[in-house]
């Protein structure tokens, strides 16, 4: 009898708990989001685009997926990864002839049997999608036509999808990292809560100057001679080492009363001024001039620059959220428990502020993709051999009769931008408390 009662109580509690969980902020947002059909469809389309971007090598590739020559079995697309990682190398026969010229016993081609850079000389000079093409069979048709060199537009579209997704993800990740960091600093500490010891402040400023000198100025020659990314890592290592040393020194010297006197830094004002400065710079012009300056610029430098400029919106959102959160009881509780400020910020405050930031990120991805497409449209910064939606669209300008070069890539840009805009709108609505119920 007693046991039965207890059980009943348990289940009642369980239901209550589940109901409470169902009412959690994220669950409400998710439910509200699902009501928006357009946004849900956009999300599904986004999954599709991400799938295409991830499997681009298997969708459009001049190499066969699987082939059998003289009794040997090969998986050239898989092998391509191993070769580019330096783990393997191609057999001599694959150097001697093009992929299509071998006598295969058995072969399975990728759905689009061309890479974005494959030049089909038999079908060069703008072959229209519906026109007569010089191909072996319908399997090798250029379904979306070719450009002047004879590159397959469909394969270019697939590679463009990968680039666009990469631009969106990488540039917004950089922007999110910077934005969340600065926004959290400004919002959590405000103008009154950040205190540093005098000596700490002085040593940190000295440390920054020293790392600029030893990390970058003194290493300018190494930068010009070596690989940029390797040298950058080394320089960052030097910077981290110097800053760590300075902070250790500061910790030791803090004990001296006159040096350890606390100074309050108005972080909020400082960060907001920085944001103001950055957002009054005309972004497009700045990106254009930076990208044009970089020698050997690649798609990654374009992404990095977009990320470095577009973080202000994210920082504003996080700041506003943290200004609210920092006076909530659970933060006070965490402070009372003696957790370090950084732990409270990163483990307790930021996770609760992240959901609204998704809105800015969604819109940010849309504008980053648009910006990259525009840059490749102008052929600024993106290397000429890189096939992107923007670069395909550019080709349409030089050949007005090639309508397929204008229609397909432009439509892809449009759809992608729309998806992210709809996602942003859906999130805005889902997060708006006035629209609930």
């Amino acid at each position, binding site marked *: 009898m007693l046991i039965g009662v207890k059980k009943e109580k348990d289940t009642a509690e369980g239901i209550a708990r589940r109901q409470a969980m169902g009412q959690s902020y994220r669950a409400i947002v998710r439910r509200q989001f699902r009501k928006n059909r357009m946004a849900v469809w956009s999300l599904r389309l986004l999954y599709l685009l991400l799938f295409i971007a991830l499997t681009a090598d298997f969708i459009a590739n001049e190499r066969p997926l699987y082939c059998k020559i003289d009794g040997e079995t090969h998986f050239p697309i898989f092998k391509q990864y191993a070769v580019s990682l330096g783990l393997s190398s191609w057999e001599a026969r694959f150097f001697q002839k093009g992929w299509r010229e071998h006598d295969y016993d058995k072969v399975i081609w990728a759905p689009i049997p061309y890479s974005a850079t494959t030049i089909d000389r038999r079908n060069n000079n703008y072959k229209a999608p519906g026109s007569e093409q010089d191909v072996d069979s319908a399997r090798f048709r250029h379904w979306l036509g070719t450009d002047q060199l004879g590159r397959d537009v469909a394969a270019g579209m697939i590679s463009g999808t990968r680039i666009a997704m990469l631009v969106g993800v990488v540039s917004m990740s950089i922007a999110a990292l910077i934005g969340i960091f600065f926004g959290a600093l400004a919002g959590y500490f405000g103008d009154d809560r950040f205190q540093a010891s005098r000596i700490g402040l002085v040593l940190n400023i000295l440390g920054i*100057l*020293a790392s*600029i*000198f*030893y990390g970058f*100025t*003194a290493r*300018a*020659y190494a930068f*010009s001679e070596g690989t940029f990314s390797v040298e950058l890592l080394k320089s960052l290592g030097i910077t981290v080492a110097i800053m760590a040393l300075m902070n250790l020194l500061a910790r030791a010297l803090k004990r001296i009363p006159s040096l350890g006197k606390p100074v309050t830094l108005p972080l909020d004002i400082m960060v907001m*001024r920085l944001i*103001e*400065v950055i957002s*009054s*710079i*005309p972004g*497009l*012009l*700045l990106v*254009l*001039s*930076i990208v*044009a*300056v970089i*020698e050997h610029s690649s798609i990654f430098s374009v992404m990095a620059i977009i990320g470095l400029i577009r973080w202000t919106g994210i920082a504003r959102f996080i700041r506003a959220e943290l200004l609210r959160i920092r006076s909530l009881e659970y933060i006070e509780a965490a402070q009372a428990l003696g957790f370090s400020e950084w732990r409270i910020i990163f483990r307790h405050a930021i996770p609760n502020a992240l959901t609204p930031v998704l809105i800015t990120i969604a819109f940010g991805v*849309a504008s980053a993709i*648009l910006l990259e*497409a*525009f840059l490749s*449209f*102008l052929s*600024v910064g993106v290397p000429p051999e890189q096939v992107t939606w923007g670069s395909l*669209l550019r080709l*349409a*300008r030089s*050949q*007005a*009769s*090639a*309508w397929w070069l*204008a*229609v397909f890539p*432009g*439509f892809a*840009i*449009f759809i992608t*931008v*729309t998806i992210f*805009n*709809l996602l942003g709108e859906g999130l805005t609505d889902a997060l708006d408390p006035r629209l609930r119920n």
Partner: protein
Amino acid sequence: MLQYLLKRILIFIPTLLVISLLAFGLSKIAPGDPVELKLRGFGPDQQNLANAERIYRETADFLGLNKPVFYVGLTSAAYPDTLYNILRRDHRENLSKLIAQYGNWKPISDYYQQLLKMNYTLQEVSARQESNTFRSVRSSLQQLFLSHADVRITSLLEEAETQALQDSSLQAALLGPIRELRSSYETIKTEARPDLLYLPDLKWYGLDNQYHNWLTGFLQLDFGISYYDSRPVADKMKDALFWTVLINGIAILLAYMLSIPLGVFSAIWKGSVFDRASTIVLFILYSLPSFWIGTMLLVFFTTPEYGMDWFPSIGLGNLPPEASFWSRFWETASHLGLPVFCLAYGALAFISRQMRGGMLNVIRQDYIRTAWAKGLSSRAVIWKHAFRNSLFPIITMFANIFPAVFAGSVAIEVIFNIPGMGKLTIDAINQRDWPVVYTVLMLSAILTMAGILIADVLYAWADPRVSYSRNKR
């Protein structure tokens, strides 16, 4: 209010300083030598070195490039504070690479002087003799100006020496200088001071530097001279500004005229077929990238020969005879149709979405219900009560319009080849015509900030509840 305005304008200063530093820094990092760019076309002939050097120096003086770059410089102690006196950028960079390896300026400078002397010796010899051996000796010696790696320099010097030995007349003229050059290069290596490279040194160059001169010029509205075609930047911009203001003005006017009624009515009839249809259409318009639509219009509605290159870009200042004016007017209008459309539809979508949102917010308010309850005509309620109060989002958008007009729609101007600000900027960036780029960046930043400020002031003016004087900001 006045205090608030002053405070806001004071904030302009650091922002502008940051932007000017950014633009200036970029121009100094950018590859390419502005003097070479300026001299392109009528470059000095290689036969007369003294003349070539004089022309180079004069051009550098003219462009103000013979001054130190900035007020201060943080370099290592190995670098001399007079490195900027070496005017040729490629030589200067090569020398600083040598310093970065050996850290001793004195012998490096001696070596450089030897190289320059050698160049004159080569010129003298070439007046007397032009053999193949001589040419190869000359080319390996001249490559030394741009070589900094030890292996490369040594092999070039050895090559020059062995080749000079092959020809008796060359041997007499060149062997001595080559040997001297070699020994001075050896001195660099033996007297290396790599320790100096890790000693920071803050150098003060004084006020007479390139940045200061440019900035003071800019503040006196002297925007400098284009590196590319030597025209004053202000002149170039004046021409471009006309077209940009023209097409953007028409587009924005059109967009406002259409979007305000559109936004108002779709808010009033919220949920109706009209509202839903217009919302969807406007959303699509909003997401359509204008450079795609521009390209599509270009591909489908124009011939491949279509372009505006032949179009008079001087403006309408020189008044032609009456008939010609009208024909020119219609021609202009027909050519501006597509670009104006491209600029207008995006603005239209944006403004009417804002207008709808603003109107929706207002319609929910109690005083609108009161107005209806009083029995006012719908016209009075909508236009007198609701519309006026829903104008705030429209006002804030003014902030975006200024810089948009100024920087022009880069995409549209490039696609339709309109010589406006956007195209000017893109061309300047591609040609590394930095004075133009600086000016455009600075002016559009100023306009952005001014736009935001004006929007804030208008906001306070339109809504008495917004007060900046009491607000602690």
